[in-house]
């Protein structure tokens, strides 16, 4: 695999990999009806950690359980840990119910992130669907902080309806910049939506970038990624320039529990970000 791998965290490696540390919920903001962004402060003796865009943590709510969630904050500000969570299951609902001042167990960061340092000099096309923007948000922060090192930067973001758009403030801020092209679309327009309507894939054909020297970073529902990959291939983007972030059931996050296995790899430690050439079977083989 050519994707960047995380260095094992000294604190986690060697010891009990299942031990998490209680982080303080400092701020909680609502993204949509069921999605929240939490800002967390590490315990005093911990001091936070450096992470790579695209990495994830295991989030533990007391007595309920643990789930893998991508880090959605700015990698240049590791003192604050940011996670964006959609309340869909027992644990994520419990997380959504946390109030500022309560504690959330954290262990990580785990997995391979977006290859931001390997794609310098190229155009970067970021395609996100729904809450798939959350794992890409650290990458956007990183790219903009190192803006001079990349060619064009294009962000295509699709949500089901205007009410499902996450990280709205960031999108507005990025759209006001001249060094990143931001295209937001919804599957179904509601209310006074004046913007684009249509799934993200319908816009790939019209994007202006250099397919021979680009990197595409894609995250969203698997079906959306599948069609996005088809659209990118039509634009002659090579598979080894396409990166996808996978979601699978994870219990340990460190390659010991077996749940996230997809063919030859474990998504938690070999992914979640994959170069498409290493994970293309998943779009061909059903129930792999």
């Amino acid at each position, binding site marked *: 695999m050519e994707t960047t791998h995380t260095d094992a965290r000294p604190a986690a490696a060697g010891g009990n990999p299942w031990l998490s540390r209680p982080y303080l919920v400092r701020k909680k903001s609502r993204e949509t009806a069921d999605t929240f962004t939490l800002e967390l402060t590490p315990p005093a003796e911990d001091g936070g950690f450096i992470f790579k865009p695209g990495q994830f943590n295991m989030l533990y709510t007391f007595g309920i359980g643990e789930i893998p969630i991508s880090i959605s904050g700015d990698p240049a500000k590791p003192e604050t840990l940011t996670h964006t969570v959609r309340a869909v299951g027992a644990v994520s609902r419990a997380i959504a119910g946390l109030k500022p001042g309560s504690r959330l167990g954290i262990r990580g960061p785990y997995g391979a992130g977006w290859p931001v340092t390997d794609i310098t000099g190229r155009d970067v096309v970021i395609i996100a669907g729904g809450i798939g923007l959350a794992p890409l948000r650290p990458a956007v922060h990183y790219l903009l902080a190192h803006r001079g090192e990349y060619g064009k930067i294009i962000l295509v973001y699709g949500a089901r309806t205007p009410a499902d758009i996450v990280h709205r403030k960031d999108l507005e801020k990025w759209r006001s910049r001249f060094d990143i092209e931001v295209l937001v679309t919804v599957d179904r327009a509601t209310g006074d939506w004046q913007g684009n309507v249509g799934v993200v894939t319908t816009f790939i054909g019209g994007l202006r970038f250099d397919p021979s020297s680009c990197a595409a970073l894609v995250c969203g529902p698997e079906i959306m990624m599948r069609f996005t990959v088809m659209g990118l291939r039509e634009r002659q983007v090579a598979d080894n320039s396409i990166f996808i972030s996978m979601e699978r059931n994870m219990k340990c996050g460190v390659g010991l529990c*077996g749940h996230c296995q997809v063919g030859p790899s474990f998504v938690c430690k070999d992914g979640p970000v994959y170069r498409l050439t290493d994970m293309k079977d998943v779009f061909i083989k059903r129930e792999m």
Partner: protein
Amino acid sequence: MPVDTSPEKAIYVLETGDFQTLLDAVMERGHSIFGPVLRDGAITYDALHRDTDLPLGWNDRQQAGSYRLVKTKRKTFFAYAVGPHSWKKFLHPPSDMLCAAQRIDDRFSINEPDREHPRRAFLGVRSCELHALAIHDKIFTDGPFINEAYRRRRQDILIIAVNCSHPSETCFCTSLQTGPRATGGFDLALTEVLTSGNHHFIIETGSAAGAELCARLPVRKAARTDIEAAEKVTSAAAKKIRRSLNTEELRETLDQKFSDPHWGQIADRCLACGNCTMVCPTCFCSTVEDTTTLTGEHAERRLKWDSCFTAEFSYIHGGSIRSSTLSRYRQWLTHKLAYWFDQFGMCGCVGCGRCITWCPAGIDLTEETRKLQEKKFVIRRTNGR
């Protein structure tokens, strides 16, 4: 892992009447002994202290989907193949405490449990099981992240292997070069030799600890004829093994047969009960179970064996990735026989035959794999991508 590989190899003879001296010497060294005992109509692994705790005189009859015990008049010690248990139940227990959490108001602390550090001896470990142990060692202790509880339990294990004399009908270790004779990874290896008038053990040392033990036993140096008699036992056992698994290009074949209709024919019989994953000595998948006390102040997280045959195993928001029995059987088989090579550089099967014996539908992975291998396949070429 605990075995010192540098000692001089020595071979001794121990009379069966003196077998208790071996157990005593092991216990004097501070090890509690676990080995084969009769329980619930099967030969299982549990604590034992006396040689009479062993299933003396018992044979087993195993077939696809069938396990029966037969009592004989001979006072044999190890005249049976592996039962439903494997050593993973001691090293990677079916339920294992990971951590505990205590809540005080809106804060909570997470504490690591006190780790047991038992000094155990495993008696009667078969060659296939030694290979299974080596596989778990690789999985749990060879990565950037390790299963610390496993490592601690594993480090001081004294292993007394037994070379197989009575392989079952479901065994196929010979085709995987994992038996029937133990070639390494033990402290002592025994061969039970029973000829007319003679009944004794040939003991081979495999470590300094093993040599030290032998020095305390009423043994005699093995003569050439003793060693030949022991070799005859394992070579005769090897000849009895009928089933086989051909691993040549198996990884590629299974990868290419992903969409083969034969998977559907297996799924028609598979009950997705997960028995095969429970009895398999190399299956290592686990889940985590969270519990709280009624007051809600104390929470525990326990690691539990999981099976890729359940719907929950691959559940993510929106549904299970593998919703059909077909996909779950395929996942199990291809992980063990194909992708294990990518992940751990070895085959995930050791040929012990447990999954065949304990499958209530009698599904035989050697037979199913052969059927997949025999079918012609077409290599799909993609345009260079």
